[in-house]
């Protein structure tokens, strides 16, 4: 019951963001928010702020390759304000070169390693757009950096998450895209993923459609269609599958960027990892993924998920980028229900905490804000400290999980991509019967484990008895 209340509270809180941005706009400082006053009612066994350090993540690759190194060039957040202090870059590129590349990439986001595919050594890198401008500026160091990731004679793909048109228009504002003449070993693919207010409008339309129970069938279907939500899901998943396909099937490394490299870029890099990397389908691995590809990679959570709460004038930055990512993960989870260690509740929980939380994890827009300005690590509690307690984890564990070491290719046909009812219809209808069925399923699985254990004990017992008998009978 308590939990119910809490969830309601969070939900209403979220709703207030969605529909009444002015309501809470008087709070003009993050430091007045709940996480700064929250005192945990549980004993912290493992401090989540230190659970996923870049050094540890790097160690996972370093046994397989020596082509990469950790760089501390951004230690003071001077080279790239939205990057973490430690990033992984090609070994052959020194910090001086990185500084130069940073001046050529949007927001200083020079290409860094996002994922290393152990199977064939191919990598996913991500960055901001190159600042070519209208006169086609180039940067030798940039070209050298990304070529350094290719093996001799190999080609790579650059996946631009904007349409060619949008990318061309970006040149007028100083941005742009990699000219193939200057990057002859790379082939550019444009996969358009929508951004900002278009996504926000989509979410608002969808929530509106779901909340009006008086819609007849035609109206409901046309509202669902008009929201375009599932179109966005399909676009994002398709881009992620394409990225994974390049890596795993084509054996080609890729660089992914959009404009800033903090939204659609992260959707694609993180989903590609869900497809490619079994570890990211475990609870811990997924937490590490969110930490690495979203929090440390500088997805501006404050602007995207919470800003409207205290500053409605800049509401245009609001966008459900992270929710779309979670929805895409849910879609894959639905298609591979036994391949994930976590269940739907885990994803719902992350959605709730990204929008409103007693923990500091999703506060701020990047590491420099959360570490230096807000001092979240000192002043607030990490979400992971709470989630990773055994008692909490059990709620988020998928009873069907069986480690699956394969690359999992989801279907992206519209018939295979349903609406995420657990999020969008959750408050509009009772899920009592579905919950009971889920419990029954858990019971069957638990009972199976019990029986297996019992059979094993009995077999051992019988074997011992037989051994004893055998000794008796032996002359």
């Amino acid at each position, binding site marked *: 019951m308590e939990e119910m209340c809490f969830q309601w509270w969070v939900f209403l809180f979220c709703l207030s963001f969605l529909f009444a941005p002015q309501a809470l706009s008087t709070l003009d400082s993050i430091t007045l928010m709940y996480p700064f006053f929250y005192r945990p009612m549980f004993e912290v066994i493992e401090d989540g702020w230190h659970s996923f350090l870049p050094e540890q993540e790097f160690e996972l690759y370093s046994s397989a390759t020596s082509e990469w190194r950790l760089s501390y060039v951004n230690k003071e957040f001077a080279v790239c304000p939205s990057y973490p202090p430690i990033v992984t870059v090609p070994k052959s590129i020194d910090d001086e070169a990185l500084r130069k590349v940073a001046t050529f990439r949007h927001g200083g986001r020079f290409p860094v390693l996002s994922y290393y595919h152990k199977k064939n050594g191919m990598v996913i890198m991500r960055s901001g757009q190159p600042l070519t401008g209208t006169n086609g500026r180039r940067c030798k160091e940039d070209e050298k950096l990304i070529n350094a990731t290719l093996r001799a004679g190999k080609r790579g793909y650059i996946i631009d998450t904007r349409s060619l048109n949008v990318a061309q228009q970006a040149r007028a504002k100083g941005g742009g895209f990699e000219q193939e003449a200057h990057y002859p070993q790379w082939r550019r*693919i444009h996969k358009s993923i929508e951004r900002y207010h278009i996504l926000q409008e989509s979410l608002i339309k969808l929530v509106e459609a*779901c909340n009006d129970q008086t*819609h007849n*069938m*035609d*109206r*409901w*279907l*046309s509202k*669902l*269609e008009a929201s*375009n939500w*599932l*179109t966005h899901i*399909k676009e994002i998943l*398709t881009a992620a*599958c*394409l990225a994974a*396909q*390049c890596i795993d*099937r*084509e054996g080609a490394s890729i660089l992914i960027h959009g404009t800033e490299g903090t939204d659609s870029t992260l959707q694609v890099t993180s989903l590609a990892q869900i497809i490619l990397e079994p570890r990211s389908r475990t609870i811990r691995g997924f937490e590490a993924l969110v930490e690495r590809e979203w929090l440390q990679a500088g997805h501006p959570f404050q602007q995207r998920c919470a800003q409207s709460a205290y500053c409605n004038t800049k509401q245009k930055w609001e966008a459900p980028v992270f929710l779309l990512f979670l929805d895409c993960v849910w879609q894959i989870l639905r298609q*591979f*229900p*036994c391949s994930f260690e976590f269940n739907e509740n885990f994803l719902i929980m992350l959605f709730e905490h990204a929008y409103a939380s007693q923990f500091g994890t999703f506060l701020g827009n990047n590491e420099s804000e959360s570490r230096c300005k807000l001092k979240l690590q000192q002043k607030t509690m990490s979400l992971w400290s709470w989630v990773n307690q055994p008692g909490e984890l059990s709620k988020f564990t998928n009873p*069907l999980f069986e480690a699956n070491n*394969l690359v*999992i290719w*989801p*279907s*992206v*046909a*519209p*018939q*295979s991509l349903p609406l995420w009812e657990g999020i969008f*219809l959750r408050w509009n*209808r*009772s899920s009592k*019967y*579905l919950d009971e*069925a889920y419990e*029954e*399923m858990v019971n*069957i*699985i638990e009972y*199976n484990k019990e029986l*297996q254990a019992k*059979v094993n004990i*009995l*077999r051992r*017992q*019988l*074997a011992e008895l*037989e051994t*004893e*008998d*055998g*000794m*008796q009978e*032996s002359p």
Partner: protein
Amino acid sequence: MEHIRTTKVEQVKLLDRFSTSNKSLTGTLYLTATHLLFIDSHQKETWILHHHIASVEKLALTTSGCPLVIQCKNFRTVHFIVPRERDCHDIYNSLLQLSKQAKYGDLYAFSYNPKQNDSERLQGWQLIDLAEEYKRMGVPNSHWQLSDANRDYKICETYPRELYVPRIASKPIIVGSSKFRSKGRFPVLSYYHQDKEAAICRCSQPLSGFSARCLEDEHLLQAISKANPVNRYMYVMDTRPKLNAMANRAAGKGYENEDNYSNIRFQFVGIENIHVMRSSLQKLLEVNGTKGLSVNDFYSGLESSGWLRHIKAVMDAAIFLAKAITVENASVLVHCSDGWDRTSQVCSLGSLLLDSYYRTIKGFMVLIEKDWISFGHKFSERCGHLDGDPKEVSPVFTQFLECVWHLTEQFPQAFEFSEAFLLQIHEHIHSCQFGNFLGNCQKEREELKLKEKTYSLWPFLLEDQKKYLNPLYSSKSHRFTVLEPNTISFNFKFWRNMYHQFDRTLHPRQSVFNMIMNMNEQNKQLEKDIKDLESKIKQRKNKQTDGILTKELLHSVHPESPTLKTSLCFKEQTLLPVNDALRTIEGSSLADNRYSEYAEEFSKSEPAVVSLEYGVARMTC
């Protein structure tokens, strides 16, 4: 056999239905008397029953051969390319002939031989006994009795011989009423609710025109309402849209005038007719068969097809019916035009909501036998078993199955059977492999001597029932006595596993359902193992206490022999051995998925880049 000119064609290509790059498998096509068979180079077999073929189309000749598109009634679509036009033409003509038989005798059921003797066959037909079913409902009783009026199909040819009517309705009343009802289908009992003493009755529309009345019909309705001791008011549900019913008045038919009948409440519920339903399904299939379908086209197609709207209408009508009985304790008379399509849908679905028996495997068979087969739903015409009027074909029964599927989605523990059962039944209403669904009414079935010449489907399904069990079914929960589904629009979803049954690439790659089902099976086996082991241990222990003295003696003489340490019978049970098959992730090959198309676009434009298309990659661990 005279229709088959070519029995085998080699080097035939089977195209992937959804691939925009015409990806294909090459293999050999065989034509048998009953099936079309394609064996691809991986030795995978695709069997298509001739009766399942809804349409065959020969498209314009291409450079690689002659395309042949076959659409099946079970929603399978296959696209072959036959290298030589002559072969294609032969196959095309043969299939045209074989898929549209002119007479019942040529249907598969009359040649199908599952190697049963006559008494087994007869037993199979006796498995479902409707007299037994009425007894289960509690009739005959003091209010309802079996009428012999239609014993020789004299009053109504499309009704069964045995009909239950109110005890106070005399034969002249019945005969009089039947003359006032379309096709003589007068009001009779469909379901009796023992607790509420209320009844669901069914009939066809009255021949009321603009002003005609029939005293006997009025009496019969009154008798029905009197047979309910609790509530004298009864509902008359006309399942048609009001406009359609009014239009029928001009043709001398129509609906009941409340003024002429005492104690009735008249209600339209607005389910569309068979023609609307047929074209609705056609539109739906057109939309979801599109290559490279976008999300928006899918939903706008789903909306404009109106399919889910129709499903919701049927469901809403059934809920109205169930509520009249449970909440108001009122009897209900249901009709449409002829009382064999919409009426069957609403009566059967309403009974299913009310009575948990119909949610069991056996009960569901009984329900279909009663409200569909015996009351003369025209299966042969609606399913197009014979080469007949295409305007009589309509997915009325498919809609019923879909409504049941929606209920299983909302109440995952209320049904003994799973989706697989519904799909299997759907398969067989078109297969003509068994006699159950042949013909259009009981009289016709008797004339065809189906019980002597064909087999009944039900015993075969029952024998295989393990495959159709719902592992989460909870028979104990009494709460499920009456189902109250939620019919807010967002609860209705596209039934992918029906309409894309054979498009494996669109399905989830792992099935929770199969996994739980196997685990349930395994649990039963484990329980048995535990019992066996416990008794063996007990035996051993008894034996040991007997020999304990000798043992102690021997023990000091013979030191432990190391070979005896590991016993042969002791093996650690591996977790879930039954699951190995499940781990094969079907359709998981990359090339099956549509995002590869995007890769193809750029691989085409630049030949230096290797194509991203791959053959079938096996995802087996």
